[in-house]
């Protein structure tokens, strides 16, 4: 018996079950949903066990066989921290688990912060101010303006509204300009959101197409 055929049949059935949601929430959809979640979790556990725990245990045992205690200790430390994290549900060990959590969060935060600054923020700023003398000047100008007006949109305090009493004319003019800029910024943001929305739509429509093609091209 071809197990791939069984897998294909199951995939078809589950696909149909999921699409029953088009007529509303129903038990069939929920069954498929639960199957998906369960399989995903089970798969994740297997991956953790076979890709993390088992290799680590094997490495420790191998180190022990080889008399390399350093590797054992190096593995026991994260193992201990992991066990401490398992005690998270116990309030009595909360202070202890906080240490492990602090280590994890601190490490991740440090990595993320450093990477965000050097990998995202500064490169994005640099990418927004590309030289206009070459390349797609219009696109870079649009990019520059869009970036400025989008950021200007979130300006709420520097320039007051001209409707406020006691405001000078000059200030009022600046405020009016600010309002106009903010309007453009809003439109720029809306365009960005629209692009994201369209992209998301296309992504999920591609998934629909994939499933439809699967159902059409399935061969038993």
């Amino acid at each position, binding site marked *: 018996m071809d197990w791939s055929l069984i897998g294909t049949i199951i995939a078809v059935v589950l696909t149909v079950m999921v699409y029953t949601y088009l007529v509303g929430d129903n038990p069939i959809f929920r069954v498929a949903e639960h199957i998906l979640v369960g399989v995903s979790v089970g798969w994740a556990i297997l991956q953790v066990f076979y890709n993390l725990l*088992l290799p680590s245990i094997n490495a420790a045992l191998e180190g022990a066989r080889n008399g390399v205690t350093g590797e054992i200790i190096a593995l026991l430390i994260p193992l201990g921290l992991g066990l401490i994290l398992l005690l998270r549900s116990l309030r009595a060990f909360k202070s202890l688990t906080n240490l492990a959590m602090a280590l994890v969060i601190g490490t991740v935060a440090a990595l993320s912060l*450093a990477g965000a600054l050097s990998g995202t923020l500064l490169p994005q700023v640099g990418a927004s101010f590309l030289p206009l003398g070459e390349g797609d000047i219009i696109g870079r100008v649009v990019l520059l303006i869009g970036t400025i007006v989008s950021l200007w949109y979130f300006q709420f305090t520097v320039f007051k509204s001209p409707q406020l009493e006691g405001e000078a004319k000059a200030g009022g003019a600046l405020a009016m300009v600010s309002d106009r800029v903010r309007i453009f910024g809003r439109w720029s943001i809306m365009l960005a959101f629209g692009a994201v929305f369209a992209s*998301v739509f296309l*992504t*999920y429509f591609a998934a*629909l197409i994939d*499933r439809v093609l699967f159902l059409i091209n399935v061969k038993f």
Partner: protein
Amino acid sequence: MQKVWCTKCGNGNVAGCRWCTACGDTLRPAYLDSQAGAGGGQKTCPVCGTVNRADAYNCSVCGTVLTKVAAQPEAQVASKSPPPAAGGSRLSRLAEARRKKEAEEGNSARSGGSDWLGSLRSDAPLPSDYATGMDEDDEIDPTLSAALRASQDDDEDTAMFAVGEPDTNAPPVEFELPLPMFTGEEPPITTPPRSMTDGGLPDWLQSLGGAALPAETPPFVASPAPSVKPPPAPSGSDGMPDWLSELSGSPVSPANPPVAPSPASPLIGSSGTETGEIPDWLREMQGGSPAPVNPAVAPAEEKDMPGWLRQTTDSLPAPSHPSFGDVDVEERLSFAFDEPIDRSSRSDDVNPLLGVDKPITLPFMFGGKRIGLTDLLGQESPLIDEVGTAPIPPADLKPWLHGLSLPTMEEPEVLGTMPGLSEGQGAPTVKGRFSVTDMLLAANRANVSADTIDPVLAEESNVSDVPNYPNNLVPWLQGLRPPRLDGMDAVEVEEDTTETRSFSLREMMQASNTAPSAEAAIPAPEAPVVPPAPPPPSVELDSTEMPTMPAWLNQESSGTAAQAIPSFTPQIPSGSFIPPLRFDDEEEQEDGEVIPFELPAFEGGPFAPSDNPPSLSRISGGAPADLEFTGFLAESNDGPGVLPSLALDDVGSPGFPGGAAMPAPKTEPADDVPDFLRDLGVTGSEMATAAPEPDLPDFLRDMDMGVAQPAPSAPEADLPDFLKEMGASGMATEAKPAPAPAKDDNSFAEGLGMAAAGMGVAGLGIAGLAGQDKQKTQSSSLEQPPPEGDSLDFLRSEADAMPTASDDDGPMPDWLAALSSGQAPAMPLPTPKETKGYTPMRMGISQAEEEQGELPEWLQPGGAAAGPAPAPAMPASEPVPDFLADMAATQVPPPAFNQNLPAQTAEQAGRGIRFSTDGLAPDTELPDWLSENRATPEAPEFTVPAQLPDWLDESETGGVHLGLEDLTSEGAEQVHPAQPAFESNLNDVAANSSASSFGGSNFLGDIEGPAWLRSTNQPKVLKPDTGQLAAEAQPASQVPTWLRTVAPQTAPEEVAVPSGPITFSSPDDDRLPQVNLPPQLASAAVLSALLAPAMGKIVTPQTEKEPITGLPGRLNTARLVRYGMYLLLALVVLFGLFTPLQTSPLTVTPPVQAFYDQIAALPPDSKVLITFDWEAGRSGEMRPMAQAVTQHVMQKRARLVNISLNPQGPALASRITDELATNPNYGNSSFYSYGTNYLNLGWRVGNEVAVRGLYDRMGELTEYKNGTVAGTTAVMKGINSLADFDLIIVLAGDEGSVRTWVEQFGIQPGARLLFGTPQAVGPLARPYALGLPNATQEIRTTEKQPRAKGLLVGLNDTAQYDQLLHDKLNLTTDQNLDLGKRLSLQSLAALMLVLVLVVANVIYLARRRE
């Protein structure tokens, strides 16, 4: 603009105002016109009346915890009939039950009727034709103003209740009686119509004391009484004497010609209980209805009525109505008399609720300008000034006291000299300021010895202008002071000693309490204050002149822990004798902590007739001091020796709680007991044992039975003289006594009974809040054997003790002359010099008798002959009211004070200040019913019912609250009455709409009252149809606030909010300015509410159902749109699949080209890492991309390593890679093998951490398929870090993966990253690849910016890439992917999306324009 309509005056105030701009009353946000009519889904705050949202937990205004009782829709409320039914008081339910019973018996005609008691409320709205009888030029008598203010103060102060919870260290309860204070020379004070503020005694009660006790003719009543219209035909079928019916139930509308007196009226000779008993002057009193004057026929003609009475009838403000309730008293009366109610006699224009045909005029209208007390007095009301300093009630205030308004203004003190000790003992007379209450209290302690003066008190007495309160009172209760008369503000009293200091009379009482032999005398009233510069009444306290103050007044100064009035529902079978109630805790009684309380029986079982004094036992919770009815009941229990210094007017005075203890109920036969009283627990046997008292009307007996203590034996002959005298004077003053022929003693008895009933109710409440320091005395008094004496003897003695009305100018009516002359012993009158001051209470005639010289001669001993201007003697043939005649016949000389005093009463008297009258010998005998029922220690104790009602159960936590309502109500379902939330001005509106706007206590609503009481009430604004009113009951909100609060708390009902602003037709509404509720009181109530457990029935607000929109079932518009979209997409997909678009060759974009170039530039055996960071959900886009990229990499024969940051990535990578590597169709099977040329390292956990972990020791990882260490494979040769890879291609399914790789690896110098993302992630990943398309090769290679070298986004870029592979490398990708179809379908979908968006926006804009 939103307006807040004043509940007092109807003035529309700007929203946001807290006080009325017209009258100063506290505005109720509930009366916002925008909220008017708001019905269901709202909660009414029991404290401030604010209508809050249904889901509100706290009041938006005062923060009071709102019970989770959703306000019932107005319609539902309106449908309630009678209003007090649901959620109402037990009395209301009793009334309802009675109605039902009557209906069953076919006597439905009796049911219904107007709640004249409720209509008697002072705060009842004025009728449209309400007008003042004064002209602009009329001069307001300052004395009257003072009286009015005092009366108003009474209103504010009478609500001084507190709950004592012995088990919870509850604060003591103190109730300061709002007795109006009169100087000896003050004119009779008629309580002006004023609103019943939160916390005042009913106006009619207060007015009884003042208006009913004219000592002498006031200056302002010199003008003759205006002509009055005869009342309409009496409704004798109302179940009460016709004359009462005439006065109350058959008002004559001004629009309708008055109906001639009934032929059966006593005015023309009829007798019995027919309509003829009412004298004309009584009719006059009722709303100013002119009675036909026929001197030839009746002596009760106007001419026979003293001028001051006549004046009072018209010029004086009408006494307040008894504002108790929502129960139709007429119905009660009818029920009591078993007579049908004839409502046909009422005119349409007559307000049946009010019973007046002519609006009672007030002398405070000046040309349309409302003149209040402040205006009249030219000064600010002290109440208004002091309300702001109201202390906050303690936290342990009982829940049922939440809505209790506690006017905490301090009682103004009167400057004067009050001898702290008896002069006879040489005690120094103290000069200082004292309040009316102090005087009352002092009078109550007339016999208190001064030997042991409390040093503390003495020290306190040195403090000037500082009110002294009982030491054991909690501070916030100490602020509760009774009002005072402004006229007494500056009473200077000469002191007999050199010591001059400010003190209060309370101090004196307390001081004298230590001097057993000392007697404090309250000066006799001086000459009336004459406008415009009225001399301040001189109050001189002389120990030898202080009359004996009743014990219930002593309670006020006792300072003992005030006890919560336990609310209970007596289950007393009909005819059962009301057993004595007493506290179980004898020890506490001895300690003075327990105030004995005599009330009708609580228990439902029949009680054998007992001679023991009724005592109140602890009801529940074991709280010894839960019950406190220490006032008049205890006083009457003092024995024969304790003779309350109450004049006749005292009985009728508002603050005279003893009215509730009016004797004689026990004397009536059982048959005379109304059913509803029988239900209250008066057993038939007990009633049978009682001596018949035919003179008292049934309803009076009922009231006595229900309110006061049943008299074991009180023969009619034992009627105390002073009571009889009260019937002549006190009642006459209230009801405009006239020399009407006394046809029947019932007239008097009714009047007295009504006063007693009404007062009794108040007295119960008052007594419940009496001070503590009197508890011991009263407790001890309970231990004494019951004094033997005639019924009402003590009252008689009071009458004797108190001077009678003195009026030099006023002619003595004949009937009075005959009465006085016919008495065997002339009442000893004090000499004028000995009675300079006055007694706190205006004791009317009795008080006037203190000064013989000031007494009108017609009142002086000797009768008419002694008077300088004696009224013409009553002809022998002239009919005299029976009650007057009887009084004259039975009047006995007043016994001396302290005669035959029982031990305990003597002791009590010794501790108190005796208001000596020098010669006034009060009757030493208590009525039998009092003596037998009270003083016996072995009186049957009240036993707690096995199953306490709910409200009792609740009160167990905080003490038992006993309310009069409980005493008089049936054992109806125990629902906590709602806290009063509104002023009663709107009650009429609510009543007319048959909406029970208030479900609060109504324990006075069931009490019948005579018409003359009804007539004294203010007119109503609305005049509903009489027929309709018959079926409508007054809303319980008419119950005074202080009464409502006393009653057990129930879930607040929806308050019927008037649909529109309350308008008073009379623009010249001369209502007195109302004292605002002190905000502190509201705060205190809030505090109490917060601390109190949630009470009341929880009603889950109904959630509104979604309206059905068009299509039935599931096919609504939204669903149709959604299904339409589904169908549209399906059509697009099917169309694209079966009719693929002819796509031209794709234009390869620079990013795609860059991506291609990066892979194409790989040298052979390069190390390429492809990450599969996407899941199966992205397979539609990522799988073709991954196949194309992997195919391209394999085409370059690079070592391929896969890794994934997604758990599903390794599987997807393995599937795609294995397919491309092993499938010979792709041309890679001959080269690539797993572990040799390509490897799958599987899933790496932890995004950033995982990526950072790949920088070293990468070979130690295990591969995905076999778990083999990667370093051992050929693929990983020379690869131990990410930096060892020539190219890293990140196929990220989400933005996080892109950022992770860029931030953790892209920042590394020389890193080469390529991104392939789905369309959804493209906008987020594209910035990392910007600038590359047009960048020069130099920039691409030399720049160090951490950016991606190439980017593939979605199917479009994948198709381009696939085209490049196909065009340049002739590579074949998975044909099953059918990228062309996918791209075509996606394009169609994009077009469809554009169309849908355009159409949707067009529709939106079109609708927007519409």
